[in-house]
């Protein structure tokens, strides 16, 4: 290891300024408006009269260094050697002259990049590790995203919607994606309780913190076994005990699957931010293309497209029509699982005599 350079600590990330394209640096804080010019490009106009054109392309997020180097090549060629990623993992190429847009887009298309995602469309799917890297995953994330976006890519590249529809995938209820506040989202769920490996548990886990990890108090110490026991009927398969104690594996290939939640949003525009609510409690894991999941998302999206008003987010649409109508329009079944019995259940009960037939 002698050849290693001198390590430094606590230096923090490099200053962003060195990474700003000159036109951005010059007009920093002085932008006055922008215009969407197409599904995948837009222009921002500065007080100085300067303009910056941004072209956005999709990314699978999981990028090889080869691909990164390829986009660097493109940025070197067209964008003075700068680029950025968006908060939804798309790649943005910026140019300071209108004449540079066309050649840039041409090259991107030639190289197979998918341009789009700006405005009232489906942008990239925020997602998580899944079977690619996480021990906790009840499903895969990248696989579902790919299957889903193959189906919905037109809403990225061309078709527009009443408003942005934000999709997200999280591979377990830890929800490392923004599933809990997304228009339509998919979350990996278990359906069976963890199994206790008493032998390993004794050595690997702290009993008090394992007991404390359970939101429903389903876990109690089992002094005889010097381990813990689970009151099975209290377990709602959240896997938090497994996060705390590796000897309580919960993955169960036959019964793991995904839930679909809908109607969340983050922006404060018009309506306040909203949590996603359960639309479908369980669909099977069917790799590689999760057809049931893709169908279900499509079905919900189609109902939205058919019924929502301009500028209306999925959650705003459902709030306007009511959930009883949502289930009707999407033809989804309303089940016991939809009825909340968790911490804040009571705020969800219909304390009113008014509802739609």
């Amino acid at each position, binding site marked *: 290891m002698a050849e290693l*350079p001198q390590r*430094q600590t*606590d*230096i*923090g*990330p*490099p200053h*962003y300024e*060195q*990474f700003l394209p000159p036109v951005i640096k010059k007009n*920093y*804080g002085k932008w006055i408006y922008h*215009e969407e010019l197409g599904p995948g490009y837009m222009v*921002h106009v500065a007080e100085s009269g300067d303009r910056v054109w941004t072209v956005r392309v*999709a990314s*699978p*997020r*999981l*990028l*090889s*260094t*080869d*691909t990164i*180097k390829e986009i660097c090549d493109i940025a070197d060629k067209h964008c003075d050697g*700068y680029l950025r*990623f*968006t*908060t939804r993992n798309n*790649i943005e190429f*910026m140019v300071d002259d209108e004449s540079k847009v066309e050649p840039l887009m041409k090259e991107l298309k030639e190289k197979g990049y*998918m341009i789009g995602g700006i405005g009232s469309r489906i942008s990239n799917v925020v997602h998580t590790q899944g*079977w*690619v*890297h996480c*021990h906790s*995953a009840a499903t*895969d994330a990248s696989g579902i995203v*790919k299957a889903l*976006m*193959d189906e919905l*890519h037109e809403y990225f590249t061309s078709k527009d919607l009443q408003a942005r529809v934000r999709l997200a995938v999280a591979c377990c*209820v*830890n*929800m490392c994606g*923004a599933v809990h*506040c997304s228009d339509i989202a998919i979350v990996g769920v278990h359906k069976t309780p963890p199994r206790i490996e008493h032998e390993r548990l004794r050595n690997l886990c702290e009993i008090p913190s394992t007991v404390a*990890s359970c939101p429903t108090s389903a876990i109690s110490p089992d002094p005889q076994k010097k381990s813990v026991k689970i009151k099975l009927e209290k377990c709602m398969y*959240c896997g*938090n005990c497994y*996060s705390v104690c590796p000897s309580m594996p919960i993955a*169960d*290939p036959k019964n*793991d699957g995904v839930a679909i939640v809908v109607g*969340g949003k*983050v922006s404060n*525009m*018009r*309506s306040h931010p909203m949590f996603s609510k359960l639309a479908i409690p369980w669909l099977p894991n069917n790799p*590689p293309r999760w057809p049931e999941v893709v169908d279900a998302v499509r079905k919900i999206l189609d109902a939205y497209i058919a019924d929502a008003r301009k*500028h209306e987010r999925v959650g705003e649409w459902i709030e306007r029509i009511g959930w009883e109508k949502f289930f009707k329009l999407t033809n989804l079944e309303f089940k016991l699982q939809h009825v909340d019995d968790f911490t804040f259940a009571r705020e969800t009960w219909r304390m009113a005599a008014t509802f739609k037939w």
Partner: protein
Amino acid sequence: MGTKHKTPLLDDLEKGPFPSFVTEIKKAAEHSEYAQDLLGQLELSFKEKVTHWKHGGIVGVRGYGSGVIGRYSDVPEEFPGVAHFHTLRVNSPSGFFYSTKALREICEVWDKYGSGLTNMHGSTGDIILLGTKTENLEPVFAELSSRGWDLGGSGSAVRTPSCCVGQARCEWSNIDTMAITHDITHHYQDEMHRPAFPYKFKFKVAGCAIDCIASIARADMSIIGTWKGDIQIDQDEVKAYAAAGMDIQKEIVELCPTGCMSWDGSELKINNEDCNRCMHCIAKMAKALRPGPEKGATILLGSKAPIVTGALMSWVIVPFMKMEPPYEEFYDLVDRIWEWWDEYGKNRERIGELIERLGFPRFLKEVGIEPHPAMVKEPRRDPFFFWSEEDIEK
């Protein structure tokens, strides 16, 4: 090299128009054994519908308690390339802007010591270097840090702060999101690298209420730009939008959540006292309307994912704070909040959960924040509340 495992299921995901992560892994597999075995193990997961990763062990770089996620295969004999497959979280620069030079440097290091696979970016905002073995962690860190890069947060620490593009390219940013994020990140290097909190703590910074960084959903502290004073209207531009076919009554006035706008066909009026700064009108008529003059931020606290007692969104704790260097008022607030969290927080208890457990009024009182109606959607309903000694007549 090339692909050494058969991956029929994954191969199917190379088809179709959307860019394929499988193709990415295969590209890396051309020159990385890690990536090759990742393909193999992932195919197995696709077949068996189960993850093949074990619960992570504690690995890291010297002097740091965070920045690395340890990961081990549960089928290492079959896939020795991923027997260890740890990720490094490299702290991204504010706003996710890069020079190609910098990106190439990272690639170079990663090609040398890692799988050649990355996430650009992780959900928190780090550059994720996806998979290497334990003995390579120090070299990667040395190579990166000597080039000006550092690791981000993991564990019970400050996590890598992130922000929307803000003033770099957005006309609506009421605060300099990138500068603030950079400052916070550097201010809390120790808190980020040496986990000493009850649990994780995330900062996210958005320039306006549109919140393009989703801070309100996933930051223990959300800093969201806002303004005081009247929305600036360019009536000519309003008319231009109308002339261009926008139905201002329907698309703007009627969708204003506070009903504070009116349009008589030639003049747009806003009763600014009633505006809640939701950004709808401004976003839809970018050329005609601009945020008011006095800029600052609303500070919100507490959002997180559903584990354990249900998801939280951040809620208002300071309606308005100027966010200007050196951000003294801000850091002072954060310190007081952490002190309180440190005193009362249980292990694995996020700040939002702690406030929920002990009570928001108590938090306000003990941290020294004045109550303000902006903090609540509505006052309490049931008349069960506490009084202090000074409120009581003896």
